[in-house]
């Protein structure tokens, strides 16, 4: 109500010259107000984002102190050389790629397939199933890991029979058999991650107007054709968004391989993923320049994926509504 009256008042004001300087003044007070409102966030952004990146760049360009030469100082790109020529460097990226090759397709098929199934089940059954699929997502991180220790340890696993059938008697055998780790990580991450993405893609499906389905039904489309030719093309942006987010997620793998190594009596490589390697540079070798260089490499990769997500998904640019 106040809005309407004020609107009338503001439109009835003639538009003479002084308006411009007043507009300018209001513009600068708007800028001042904006920065004042932004200031707590900017401080946290500096502490939690900008300053550490800047400091990591500075650290990466230093030379690490050694027992013979305890001084630090400018070292150029030597730390990047240390990282690139480390015997584990290429392996860690190969491991991540090996995991992504198995995990991403399964994850995407699972997300889209289950979201379509839920969307084809209106009413309480569909929403109950969506809730059930979401539950494992609540067991994030370490809790999901302990659950998987329970599943992977043949000694007390509910799938004990399965482990014995494939000749596995200890958790060490289950985890450390050659080539097994990408599959186990796939299972762990699928279990934990699929539910929340089903909710996202399902949200996209729910946004499709009903008349599209009515038109397709009039054309004689059955449930399969509806899913394949109508729903799937429409939710393509959501699928792309989910795929890229999960791709970026692959490069941060740390907890699962690190702790699986711990429960498998160190039978796994200690540095299996890039993040583990960066952690080892910092906390085993105390080579901070190399650790900084490693995290900058990962930062550039995930930043590239992040920019791709932001510009391709339409997150950025819808602000003028």
């Amino acid at each position, binding site marked *: 109500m106040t809005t309407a009256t004020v609107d009338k008042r503001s439109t009835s004001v003639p538009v003479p010259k002084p308006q411009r300087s007043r507009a300018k003044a209001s513009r600068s007070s708007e800028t001042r107000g904006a920065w004042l409102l932004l200031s707590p966030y900017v401080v946290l952004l500096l502490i939690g984002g900008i300053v550490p990146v800047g400091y990591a760049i500075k650290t990466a360009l230093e030379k690490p102190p050694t027992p013979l030469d305890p001084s630090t100082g400018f070292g150029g790109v030597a730390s990047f050389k240390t990282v690139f020529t480390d015997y584990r460097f290429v392996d860690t990226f190969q491991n991540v790629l090996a995991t992504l090759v198995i995990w991403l397709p399964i994850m995407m098929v699972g997300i889209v397939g289950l979201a379509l199934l839920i969307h084809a089940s209106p009413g309480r059954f569909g929403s109950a199933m969506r809730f059930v*699929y979401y539950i494992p997502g609540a067991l994030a991180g370490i809790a999901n890991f302990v659950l998987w220790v329970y599943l992977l340890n043949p000694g007390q696993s509910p799938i004990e029979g399965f482990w014995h059938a494939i000749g596995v008697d200890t958790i060490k055998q289950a985890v450390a058999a050659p080539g097994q780790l990408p599959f186990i990580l796939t299972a762990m991450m699928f279990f934990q991650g699929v539910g929340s993405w089903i909710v996202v893609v399902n949200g996209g499906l729910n946004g499709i107007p009903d008349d599209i389905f009515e038109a397709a039904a009039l054309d004689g489309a059955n449930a399969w054709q509806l899913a394949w030719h109508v729903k799937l093309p429409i939710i393509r942006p959501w699928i792309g968004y989910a795929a890229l987010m999960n791709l970026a997620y692959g490069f941060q793998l740390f907890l699962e391989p690190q702790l699986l190594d711990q429960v498998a009596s160190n039978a796994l490589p200690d540095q299996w993923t890039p993040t583990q390697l960066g952690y080892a540079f910092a906390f085993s070798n105390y080579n901070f320049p190399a650790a900084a260089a490693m995290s900058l490499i990962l930062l550039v990769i995930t930043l590239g994926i992040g920019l791709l997500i932001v510009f391709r998904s339409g997150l950025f640019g819808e602000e003028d509504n």
Partner: protein
Amino acid sequence: MAAHTRGIESWSPGRLARVVSMLFVAAIFLVPIAGFVAMAFRSNDGVENGSGGFLGLGDIAWSNVRYSWSQVNGFGPDGGLFTRWMTNSLIVAAGGAILAVVAALPAGYAMARLRFRARRAVLLITLVTMVMPNTVLVIPLFLEVNAVGAVGQLWPVALIMGFFPFGVYLSYIHYLITMPKELVEAARLDGLGEVSVFWWIGLRISKQVVVLVAFFAFVANWTNFFLPLALLSSNQRNQTVSIGLQQLIGASPLFNPTVAAGLDVKLYMPQLALATFISMLPLLAVFLGAQRFLIRGETVGAVKG
């Protein structure tokens, strides 16, 4: 299960296949969780002998929980370490969530409703940092905190957790939807400054977004593993429960007999499951508290699971 009431004639093969496969997937998700929760209530002997039948449900007893708790909370030089870890997690997760709300609301409002030159740049930085996995910054954050000599203390962890770009994005969307431009302009013409408009009008209509930001921030902080691992590992009493659980696993005779032999407490699978179960209870509590708002804000909240 509404389909049942409509009678058997509507059960086409396609429909049957859909319902059966959905129930099958649901069972794959639920059975391990049910077995794991049951594990928290079982006895070491029962697990060893494989008694208790399906998922060990017959082995459940309250006395097992009391024994397991004495073992879990007996861990540490003087015991009580687990309680301490839970308290630490509460401090950093709640502290970080409060900071996130305090910073996100005015920032989201400014980006949604005020025009200033760097607006698009700030929005872009927020979106990019939101979609990037936060672990890539942990080593640089460690170097930063190490440079100021605060490694092993709780406050830097809470402060860093306060940087929560997803919360800023949620607030930004919230104000785009709930606060029309005209309302802001009307308030300005009534003589209110930019900060006052936010304070007197923006905050009035922000209950929904406060709950959403606080909820997502608390959950993210509580389950965060890598940041506390890098910043708090050096100080056993200042660890959070997420990395504390890792210590309990490392002290279990199941995986590390040599370490476990030197301990007073015995941490087998029931004890580990109980510790994990207890560590999830605060998440359950905030979920139940925020549930009403989560359902309403589903479309916004769904942007990042």
